């Protein structure tokens, strides 16, 4: 069969320029310059506006280290182009949500990059801690099965991707959860997060003794532990699923005594996302 040669995509000069600024020019040293240049494009023109928003939303097209610069750039633009920046942020939330709903290995790189991007957006004060916490809760709960006999297609038992995703988001911004109230909320999340980890780890998929390659990957263990240490150096790390379960029960009793009867290891405040 003849190899199908793809025509190189021809983009309008303006689009090429926007791409150049965001995907090639941008680096740690020249964020301010890029902001300046981007402010000069014609934001009134619907097509340019739309294209710039599109490029600013796609953090996964950048090198990983530069995602932070992109968040800085967007934050710098926010006082001049609040509408565009709002749409960019909406797009980021949508992308993360779509990733949770689709669950395809092809999306993995993209999802990690977008989690990083959202985390950096918190660090640059574009989004609030509530947004981050809601996202974290949805990562460990959306489409997740709490029953070992029920296999969720969105979060299969042998997939540890959501753990990685949550670790990425926590590593990126959780150390900056500094106020008393947000620290507290994060502590609550960490209880649920540890339960999720133990639930994954205790699943029968990872307990086949005859084949060691099926054991829970040690790398994941390290990522998880490093993440918790990074976020809360003095945190009490649960050593078993039972401990994590007991902690959730304890928390529920403390926060929602009236819910004692409904015992479904879910935070009732999950609703927002």
């Amino acid at each position, binding site marked *: 069969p003849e190899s199908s040669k793809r025509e190189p995509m021809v983009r309008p000069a303006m689009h090429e320029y926007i791409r150049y600024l965001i995907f090639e020019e941008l680096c740690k040293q020249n964020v301010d310059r890029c*902001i300046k240049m981007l*402010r*000069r494009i014609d934001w009134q023109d619907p097509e340019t506006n739309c294209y710039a928003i599109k490029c600013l939303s*796609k953090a996964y097209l950048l090198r990983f280290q530069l995602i932070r610069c992109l968040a800085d750039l967007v*934050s*710098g633009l*926010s*006082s*001049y182009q*609040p509408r565009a*920046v*709002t*749409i960019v*942020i*909406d*797009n980021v*939330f*949508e*992308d993360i*949500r*779509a990733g949770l*709903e*689709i669950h395809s290995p092809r999306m993995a790189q993209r999802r990690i990059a977008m989690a990083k991007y959202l985390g950096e957006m918190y660090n640059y*004060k*574009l*989004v*609030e801690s509530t*947004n981050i916490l*809601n*996202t974290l809760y949805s990562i460990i709960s959306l489409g997740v099965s709490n029953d070992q006999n029920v296999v969720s297609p969105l979060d299969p038992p042998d997939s540890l991707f959501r753990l990685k995703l949550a670790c990425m988001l926590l590593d990126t911004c959780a150390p900056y959860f500094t106020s008393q109230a947000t620290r507290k909320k994060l502590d609550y999340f960490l209880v649920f997060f540890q339960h999720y980890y133990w639930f994954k780890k205790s699943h029968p998929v990872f307990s086949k003794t005859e084949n060691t390659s099926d054991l829970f990957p040690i790398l994941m263990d390290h990522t998880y532990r490093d993440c918790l240490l990074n976020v809360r150096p003095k945190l009490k790390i649960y050593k078993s699923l039972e401990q994590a379960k007991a902690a959730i029960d304890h928390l529920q009793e403390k926060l929602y005594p009236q819910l004692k009867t409904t015992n479904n290891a879910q935070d009732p405040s999950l*609703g*927002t*996302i």
Partner: protein
Amino acid sequence: RKDKKDKTNQIVKIVMRHLPPTMTEAQFLDQVGPLPENDSYYYCKADWSLGQEATCRAYIDMSSKDIGEVVQFRDRFDGYVFVDHKGVEYMAIVEYAPFQCFLKNKARNDDSK
């Protein structure tokens, strides 16, 4: 699921997701309209890099004073099935938008170009 956060006289931003990817803004307004009273709204075209899973979205800012209307809109369109021109069905989701608005950045506030 949508959560009704009651904060008096504030804007509630709701999002309509999973609209058919080929739906244009005009078609959207035609099928959903008239939109409930709103402060602003915008329509997002599908992101084709998601391939088959691409869908359109619409964001609507409504005043929380008439929360009744918000709820009414949700009741009407959450789970509403849209059909594209090929006959594929898309079940729309109406939710409280994850991101409501950002605080104004005070650091760079000089808007003289």
